[in-house]
């Protein structure tokens, strides 16, 4: 998967905002872009960790 910084993030933000019906003022975009870049990188860090297919997700923590 490509790094978020390597692809046209502004176009993605515009398309995603339109699809989600989210109003994005031009002045907000640099911060949204910065946050998305960081969160995307962290998401990829988790996504690339090898886990068994059978592992159950843990939406609720129980002991």
């Amino acid at each position, binding site marked *: 998967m490509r790094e978020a910084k390597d692809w046209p993030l502004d176009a993605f933000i515009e398309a995603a*905002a339109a699809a989600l019906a989210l109003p994005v003022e031009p002045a907000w975009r640099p911060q949204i872009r910065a946050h998305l870049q960081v969160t995307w990188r962290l998401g990829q860090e988790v996504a690339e*960790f090898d886990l068994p297919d059978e592992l159950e*997700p*843990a939406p609720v923590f129980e002991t």
Partner: protein
Amino acid sequence: MDPWRTAADIAGEVVSGRSTAVAVIEATLQRIKQHDHALNAFTALTPERALAKARAVDLDLRAGKSAGPLAGVPFAVKNLIDVAGLATLAGSRINRGRPPAELDSPLITRLEAAGAVLVGALNMGEYAYDFTGENAHYGASRNPHELGLMAGGSSGGSGAAVAGDLVPLALGSDTNGSIRVPASFCGLFGLKPTYGRLSRARSFPFVASFDHLGPLARSSLDLALAYDAMQGYDASDPVCVDRPIEPAVPGLEHGMGGLRVAVAGGYFRRGLSPAAQEAVARVAADLGAADEVELPEAGRARAAAYVITAAEAAALHLDRLRRGAADFDPAVRDRLIAGAMLPAAFIVKAQKFRRWYREQVLKLFANLDAIVAPATPFAAPRLGQQTVQLDGAEVPLRPNIGIFTQPISFVGLPVVVVPVPLQPLPIGVQIVVPPWREDVALRIAYGLEKHGVALAPRPPR
């Protein structure tokens, strides 16, 4: 009257007749009136309710009835916790339009059943998505140790109110560190219990996977008294686990002998300020914790917590963003919008990773009773500060505040933060224990306090 008394001191005076609950509450309201303009801890006061409750406590005592272990103790709650008659703001301007809560949170009901007296609601970072205590709508909660410093967040008002002498006890919420960060920055004891231990019913959510409620106080005994009073199953919170009440107060004095304690190594040793290193070293030395233990993939756990937080918070607020994004605190709004754009695959993988990580961490506790870790990488930064020097590099401040708290709450482990009274500022250390062993963490905190290693230092006026 000495305002730096603990909750236990106050209850003792009220029960013994040396003071009355009404006198305590009147003095508390007066103190808040005098000092809160500087601290900006409170967003609402409930004086009529407080005085009525205080009169009831005094009447019970005069009638020879038990008034409870927190008789006459004033407390306040982060304003995401429902208080009957108040709109639950959760630090936002948007929620001002909500109808007033009809009922109190069950935690308020339980504290009041133990004799405590609610005096008001406390400032916080908007919708709890914050580690600083800053708030674009209501202003920053200020650190009582120096008003130009951050109180920490998101339970910033809770930290400021307790460290600032306004109340001896406050409730906060902790999703990624929001009790533990203000406890560290303000020099307080704070408890984030096991996920599912204390009811979250009638509180405004943030990230359902990680949300916890808990107390902040100026002594470990007060923390334990409040925690014991709030325990118990509550069917109105589907996450609350049906377990018997396991009181922590009776075991506080059992001492620390025989406890197997290690220091978190690897990830938890990197990016620490000298103050954080010193605080961990002092606690470890007192506990005889010579060994280090590695929480495997702790950095990735923090990453997964970050991603789940962004996605769940965005989902929670999506409609509000569509209707009025400009009404949010800009610092929160931009993160929520970014969170709404994350691929679902990242979130599901993060929840799978969470299962794996939980299993690895629980294995460590097969041979350990507690793990010592820094609470924050540094003591309270200045309000508005954007970057910090760590390991010789200048890094962004905000995302680094919670790096040591997030990998713990990610899997719901109970933690007590103990304040280490360094100069010029205190800083917290986490005592992390296995699920449902809050009693062990509180017992360790109590021992550290007895030894003078942990102490909530009194700020200068």
